[in-house]
């Protein structure tokens, strides 16, 4: 699964690393042609004494020059983003790069912001999946709790006269709670997985939308459309991954710090330990070593997961939406993509 994301994230990298080979010549040639055309209109309007047309052509020439400037700004942004290793130079010193995303064994090797964001999101989702699996297995194991029947039916020496009862050694009410918890976690996980898919396409969206946007912004009639695409490209391609690196980086590092391992032998030990403790909670749970620390680890891990599943997506999407709306208003047509998305859904 990760390989698919990785391929998607890097397959368009040539757009990003060598934009001048693909579209910059076309963009500059188009700009030159449009400026030439507008200059002719300006001269013609001067000869014919049509002042309004002359002012209009002058403003449009300024707009094209501004678009050319945007192309250069785009080059600077590309140079900046391809020269910085966000893993080691930016988020590493802040302790926001999880161990799964740093070093030679990282699931995504690139140090650019998009790769790091994909890695952060992927790591978080894996943690949530592991948590869900652990909760499911804990609930499943708890359902295997044997019920013990005890009784005495030989009172007064008469067979068949007496009393019996049944004792369930599992913690009462826990199965119901794990059911609710699983429902909530799996529902919220859909949003998280959706974020990963969007992030995996961040590089693609940035490259393609920026390409179309800058070229479209050169032409007079497609200027506002181009501006909106540029806003969407920067919002989804840079701002959103940046926010994911900060927020999910912190959450992933925090999850790792809890010391709870939910994969391999660690998961087996945890599930075994906690179910064993819960089985015997009422029958001497104090004797199970480390029960309180297991529960504390579990609560801390689940707390981070809850934060990343509920609050953080809202916060990130809100900021990206605000950026796209205001930025698109500044450079093109106002675009409220979250409202559009909500209306479509």
């Amino acid at each position, binding site marked *: 699964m990760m390989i698919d994301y990785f391929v998607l994230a890097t397959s368009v990298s040539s757009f990003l690393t060598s934009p001048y080979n693909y579209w910059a010549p076309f963009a500059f040639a188009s700009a030159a042609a449009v400026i030439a055309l507008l200059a002719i209109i300006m001269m013609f309007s001067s000869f014919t004494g049509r002042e309004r047309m002359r002012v209009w052509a*002058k*403003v449009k020439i*300024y707009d094209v020059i501004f678009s050319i400037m945007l192309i250069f700004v785009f080059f600077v942004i590309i140079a900046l983003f391809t020269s910085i290793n966000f893993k080691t130079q*930016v988020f590493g*010193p*802040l*302790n*926001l790069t999880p161990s799964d995303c740093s070093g030679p064994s990282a699931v995504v090797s690139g140090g650019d912001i998009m790769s790091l964001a994909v890695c952060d999101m992927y790591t978080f989702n894996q943690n949530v999946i592991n948590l869900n699996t652990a909760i499911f297995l804990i609930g499943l194991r708890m359902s295997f709790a044997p019920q013990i029947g*005890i*009784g*005495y039916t030989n009172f007064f020496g*008469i067979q*068949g006269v*007496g*009393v019996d*009862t*049944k*004792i369930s050694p599992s*913690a*009462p*009410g*826990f199965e*119901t*709670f794990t059911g609710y918890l699983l429902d909530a976690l799996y529902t919220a996980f859909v949003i998280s997985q959706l974020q990963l898919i969007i992030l995996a396409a961040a590089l693609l969206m940035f490259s393609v939308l920026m390409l179309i946007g800058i070229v479209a912004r050169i032409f007079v009639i497609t200027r506002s459309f181009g501006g909106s695409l540029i806003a969407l490209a920067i919002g989804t391609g840079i*701002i959103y991954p940046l926010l994911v690196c*900060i927020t999910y980086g*912190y*959450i992933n590092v*925090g999850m790792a710090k809890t010391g709870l391992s939910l994969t391999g032998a660690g998961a087996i030990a945890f599930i075994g330990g906690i179910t064993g403790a819960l089985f015997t*909670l*009422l*029958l001497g*749970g*104090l004797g199970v070593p480390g*029960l*309180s*620390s297991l529960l*504390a*680890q579990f*609560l801390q891990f689940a*707390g*981070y997961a*809850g*934060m990343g599943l509920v*609050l*953080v997506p*809202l916060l990130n999407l*809100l*900021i990206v*939406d*605000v*950026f796209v*709306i*205001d*930025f698109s208003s*500044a*450079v093109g047509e106002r675009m*409220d993509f*979250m*409202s559009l998305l909500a209306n479509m859904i």
Partner: protein
Amino acid sequence: MMRKETLIVLAVAFLLLPSSVHAGLLSSLTNFCNTSITGSESAAVSSGGISGVVTISLVIVLFMLMALGIFYALGYGFGIDSVKNFTKTEMMESVFTLVIIILVGAGLAFASGAMSFVANLGLSGIQAAASSFSGYVPAPQVSGSTCSSSSYVYETSCSVPGTAGSTCYTQQEARSQLCPQSSVIAISGAGGAYRTMCTNLVGNGVATGINNIIPSMVTLFVLNIFKETTVYAMPYGMGFTFQPFAGLDPVINIVQSQLNIYFVVIMIYVGISFLLIFIYNVFPIFLYGGVLLRSFPWTRAAGGSLIAFFIAFYIIFPAILYPFTLYISTLNANIGAISSISAKNIATQSSYTAIEGLVFGAAMVSEIQGFAESVGYIGVQIIGVLIAFLISYDLVEVLGDVLGAPSLHSRNLLSKMI
């Protein structure tokens, strides 16, 4: 095969065993608050790596000012009014960003100061409430003198009675020395306030949940045993059986519902604690990132919204929440854990009396009352979170307007998304 008496003794033993299971858990969680919220300010603020962002932002703003000057000259030269107006507006924005950078460059002392000021405003009210709380026994007249009887100062909530012959305390001393968890401490820095809130939420909120979950589980355990109890009167294979407590289902359902709510209580309190930890450690990065993004005209909206989020949620949100967590602490210290249901009662009474009391008598009333009080804790805390959130949210919108992210306000985005 065992005798009925043995069964009852075994059941009572079950009740007493897990009485301190939660102690280690609470201790671990409280330690987690202290290790996650370190220093007097967020580590992100003092980290060397990020402080360079201020310098970078300063360079960018100065560069922008220079570029805008050139643009203004071009606009003036070509006679394009729109360019001139644009550059004028941008120059003002850049100067505003410069002011923000200077404030940030001076550290977050201003943020801590602002937070302390707002939070301390609420403390006088809490102080008064704590002083007049009926849980405190009137103080002796002379501090430091020898108590002549045990009826002098003691703190009911932490079970520290005054002892004849020991040193007397004033009411204030009793509160601060005998029962420090209910004392009111003025805020001097952001880190201290966040730590206090987190440990209060865990030590009182989560503790309330756990203190009730375990007895409730034990109660369910015992009730289920009673419910399943069958009496046989079938000598030689003929006769009848009956279950004397088969009608316990309504009681079992109530306790089960309480148990579910206590699970939710723990989730809510842990959630708020993590929210505070997250804000403390991550939102300062938003401030720096916001300053950097605000330096560019085209990314001003993102930068402005990040700074707005920082001010509203790093400073104002916890400042408003702080008195509520103290209030919870004071209440919890004076009322104590609510677990009137019969882990204790059943253990200390005969089983039949306890069950009879649960079904017909005061134990059930006491249980429901205790449950309502416990849930009241959550209610107060949730009200606090809601008030703090609403005010912070409103502030985000207003600040968004001021800082160049008008869509936060005009589009009512936050409420739409929520």
